[in-house]
């Protein structure tokens, strides 16, 4: 089968409507006679609700209805996406808060009115009286009481293998770090939105504005409303970025559906930015107390980590998934004989947290790579060399770790970690770079470089399906359970289908995010779409190809094996110009075929193991010692994607991930005051990187380790751009200011860096810790 699209940087099918203003984002969806919903949110971080008075709101101009928790008392709480977890059941979030408010931004009441301005006017008239309670704001202080008899630490997740105590006893040296990652999140440019309509004739609720996991969210909404999922259809239009935080079940999704049902009018809700920054999932905030035992050569003998995950007020649909991923992926590409990790999942009075691009891995990579730099410092080894000698050798793969990652046994499928390290060093010109930096430092500049290595995970199973149909014009429709968040899933699926079937990729129309077009689907997240849906499309398209050739062979009365399909035509292999048949003709001929009319096929792809792409990040920074300001001058990403369906799109994912990683390293943080009031509620305080702060990233894409787990050797690329940016930038800052191990907390704000520099000018306090202090 000749591949002529896979591997090509073809232009995207998605772009034309988006560059001409003909996109259909949630905000662009409207229905006649619709009402607008506005949510009234708690202004207190923690308290007992004494009263919620909607009388004045109900009387306000243009108001159709106003509800408090009492009006939705019958609703279930928002459940976990992957199924119930007894440990978290008592902590799930209600759609509207009735007795307690637990974070600023928590929905307490909702107003429906003729237009968004009137809805907001009315919402301001809702009186919420709260008797304030002390706010819990620190996830690593001892847990307190969530409710009578319920601790704010629902669970501690433990993983590990090998004899950790023995390793520390035998250690030549032990390094110990206390590291923190700041609270930040995906913050897509389009805020959330949901528009629901109720079709009374068919007792069917339709919700527009779905994203990421439409089928799972349909089930989640149906669960809360106690309806059969078949009576709830979700539709995905254009989505203005997801990054993990959008598409999950939120209180507002349930409220628009219930509104449409009860008010018998379409209900439109568009989140504003103030709400987005206090109500859409936060992420990342963790504190790690970690130590590593190493031998005299700097080889890792054991890693022992206890970390405190600031989950915020309630578990969201992900439950403790981020804690699981942090623990499962922390070891990265290094061979570690003994490992023990305890993830304390703690609730605080902040906006609930969940997954954000490379969840658990951005946090874990900062911890791991800071450890590697600390080991290099302690043993006087070169930072690159200490990584190289701990890498899992190419020959050892597939490499099994006695751990599971969100229920999946961790088996590193394929990889040449050392080889990619060499490519990265060669690509960035590491030796010349060190000389340049030394020269510039001598000239008085504060410049430095940092390096970090990481594993990613992709192709999250268990299965995906696709349905490929050739229509009478020879056009091809591919129906998938996937989702588009802007990553180019339509183009990638079209390339895969076009190659398998033998048509022009521009003739392929890819359907995603429509729960009424395909019963099952797991959407697009965790870098799974290309691997799982792509493989399913390949399987389906391959069987359509076989069917087409068999049908054409019968019609053309020639043996099937003499035929091929090129550019949408069934041709004879030996003489492509001779008689041939257009696929549309073949499809028409099958229109009345007895058993399966039409030319189409379903394809399923199962996988019980994720696969593991991997990468290297190199950062070069310049520090202004007097202000603490940091400027990232250069950044390089070397990444092995197994096989790139569209290199241009893979590089786009890596460049976008990098920019978000840069934000988390230097600029972005959700801060709270002592009373739990959020301090980052506008874009003047929550700082996204602009073009001026984001250097043009260099990308080295390698395909040295195709995955053996799927027919095309694919691995995911959606998250690998962000994973180790925090770690690499921190290392580069240490190098620039000449204080190894200085950065222990992200983001590195100017004030924090200035404090580090000022402290360094005062006499250094001893950092050494005794050997083997367990």
């Amino acid at each position, binding site marked *: 089968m000749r591949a002529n699209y896979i591997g090509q940087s073809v232009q995207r099918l998605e772009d034309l409507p988006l560059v001409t203003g003909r996109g259909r984002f949630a905000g662009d969806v409207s229905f006649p006679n619709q009402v607008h919903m506005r949510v009234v949110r708690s*202004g*207190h971080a923690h308290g007992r609700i004494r*009263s919620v*008075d909607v009388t*004045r709101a109900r009387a306000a101009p243009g108001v159709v209805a106003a509800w408090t928790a009492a009006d939705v008392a019958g609703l279930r709480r928002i459940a976990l996406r992957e199924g119930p977890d007894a440990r978290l059941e008592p902590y799930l979030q209600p759609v509207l808060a009735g007795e307690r408010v637990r974070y*600023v931004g928590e929905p307490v009441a909702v107003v429906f009115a003729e237009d968004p301005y009137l809805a907001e006017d009315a*919402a*301001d*008239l*809702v*009186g919420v*009286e709260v008797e*304030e309670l002390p706010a819990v704001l620190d996830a690593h202080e001892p847990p307190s009481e969530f409710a009578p008899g319920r601790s704010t630490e629902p669970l501690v997740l433990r993983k590990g293998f090998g004899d950790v105590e023995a390793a520390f006893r035998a250690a030549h040296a032990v390094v110990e770090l206390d590291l923190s990652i700041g609270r930040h999140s995906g913050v897509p440019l389009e805020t959330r939105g949901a528009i629901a309509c109720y079709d009374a004739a068919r007792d069917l609720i339709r919700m527009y504005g779905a994203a990421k996991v439409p089928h799972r969210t349909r089930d989640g909404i149906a669960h809360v409303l106690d309806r059969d999922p078949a009576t709830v259809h979700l539709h995905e239009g254009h989505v203005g970025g997801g990054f993990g935080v959008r598409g999950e079940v939120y209180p507002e999704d349930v409220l628009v559906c219930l509104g449409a049902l009860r008010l018998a009018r379409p209900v439109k809700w568009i989140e504003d930015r*103030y709400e987005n920054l206090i109500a859409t999932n936060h992420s990342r905030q963790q504190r790690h107390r970690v130590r590593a035992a190493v031998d005299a050569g700097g080889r890792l003998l054991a890693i022992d980590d206890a970390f405190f995950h600031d989950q915020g007020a309630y578990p969201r649909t992900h439950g403790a998934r981020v804690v699981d991923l942090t623990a499962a992926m922390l070891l990265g590409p290094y061979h570690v004989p003994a490992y023990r990790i305890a993830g304390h999942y703690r609730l605080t009075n902040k906006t609930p947290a969940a997954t954000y691009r490379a969840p658990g891995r951005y946090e874990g990579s900062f911890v791991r790579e800071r450890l590697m730099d600390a080991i290099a410092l302690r043993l006087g080894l070169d930072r690159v060399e200490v990584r190289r000698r701990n890498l899992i050798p190419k020959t050892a793969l597939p490499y099994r770790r006695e751990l599971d990652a969100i229920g999946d046994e961790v088996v590193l499928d394929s990889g040449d970690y050392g080889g990619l390290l060499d490519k990265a060093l060669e690509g960035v010109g590491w030796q010349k770079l060190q000389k340049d930096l030394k020269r510039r430092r001598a000239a008085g500049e504060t410049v430095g470089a940092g390096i970090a290595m990481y594993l990613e995970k992709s192709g999250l199973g268990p299965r995906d399906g696709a349905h490929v149909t050739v229509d009478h014009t020879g056009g091809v429709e591919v129906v998938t359970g996937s989702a588009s968040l802007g990553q180019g899933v339509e183009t990638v699926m079209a390339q895969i289908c076009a190659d398998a079937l033998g048509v022009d990729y521009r003739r392929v129309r890819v359907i995603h995010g429509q729960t009424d077009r395909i019963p099952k689907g797991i959407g697009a997240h965790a870098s799974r779409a290309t691997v799982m849906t792509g493989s399913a499309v390949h399987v389906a398209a391959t069987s359509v190809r076989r069917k087409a050739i068999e049908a054409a062979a019968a019609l053309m009365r020639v043996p099937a094996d003499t035929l091929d399909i090129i550019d949408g035509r069934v041709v004879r292999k030996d003489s492509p110009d001779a008689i041939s048949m257009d696929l549309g003709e073949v499809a028409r001929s099958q229109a009345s075929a007895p058993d399966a009319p039409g030319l189409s096929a379903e394809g399923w792809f199962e996988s019980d193991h994720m696969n593991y792409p991997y990468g290297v990040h190199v950062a070069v920074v310049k520090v202004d010692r007097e202000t603490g300001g940091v400027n990232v001058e250069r950044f390089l990403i070397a990444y092995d994607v197994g096989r790139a369906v569209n290199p241009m799109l893979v590089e786009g994912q890596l460049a976008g991930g990098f920019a978000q990683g840069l934000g988390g390293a230097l600029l972005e943080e959700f*801060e709270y*005051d002592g*009373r739990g*009031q*959020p*301090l*980052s*509620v*506008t874009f*003047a*305080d929550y700082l996204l990187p602009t073009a001026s702060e984001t250097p043009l990233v260099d990308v080295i894409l390698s395909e040295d380790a195709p995955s053996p787990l799927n027919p095309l050797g694919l691995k995911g690329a959606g998250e690998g751009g962000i994973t180790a940016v925090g770690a690499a930038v921190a290392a580069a800052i240490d190098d620039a200011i000449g204080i190894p191990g200085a950065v222990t907390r992200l983001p590195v704000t100017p004030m924090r860096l200035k404090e580090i520099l000022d402290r360094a000018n005062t006499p250094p306090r001893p950092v050494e810790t005794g050997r083997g202090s367990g």
Partner: protein
Amino acid sequence: MEFDNTLEVSLPPDEAWRVLLDIRRIAACIPGAELTEVVDERTYKGKVSVRIGPVAMSLVGRARLEEVDHANRRARVKAQGADPKGRGSTDSVIDFRLEPAGNGTRVLIHTDVKLAGSIAQYGRGSGMIQSVASQLIARFGEALKTQIAESSSRPATAANAVPPPAKPASGLALIARALWDSIVRVFRRQQRR
């Protein structure tokens, strides 16, 4: 946000103490404050209007004189108030303590301003709010000083006479992040006309 201020007055401690317990006088010292109703001997309703650049707010609520300790001349005023347009609310505590100072009195004021709602959430503005809050408290201290000094020359005003409404403390403005502590009425729903 916590502030400590001290001021010296010429009045001897017991006389100064009597002024301090007269909420009407205290209210008159607060820039932009207006006492609207006397609920009982220790509880007063009022509102404070403040302008912060383009932001003009009035916090309507109540103040209660609690923990009045005549022996040690200490008093605590608990003030709660909210903006009728839903932009936020404040819970503030002001602790007074009088000490003799020569033949006059030293008044020690400790103020703790707690804020909630959107007025408390603008990171960039919090520095400004702190600066204005301390300026307002300083102005309150000055006004209190003159009140106490003047009172020695005339008897306490009639029980529930209400001082004229003051113009908003527009002179001092700050971006929203809630400012000032004040002696106001506790928030009640029907306040929100």
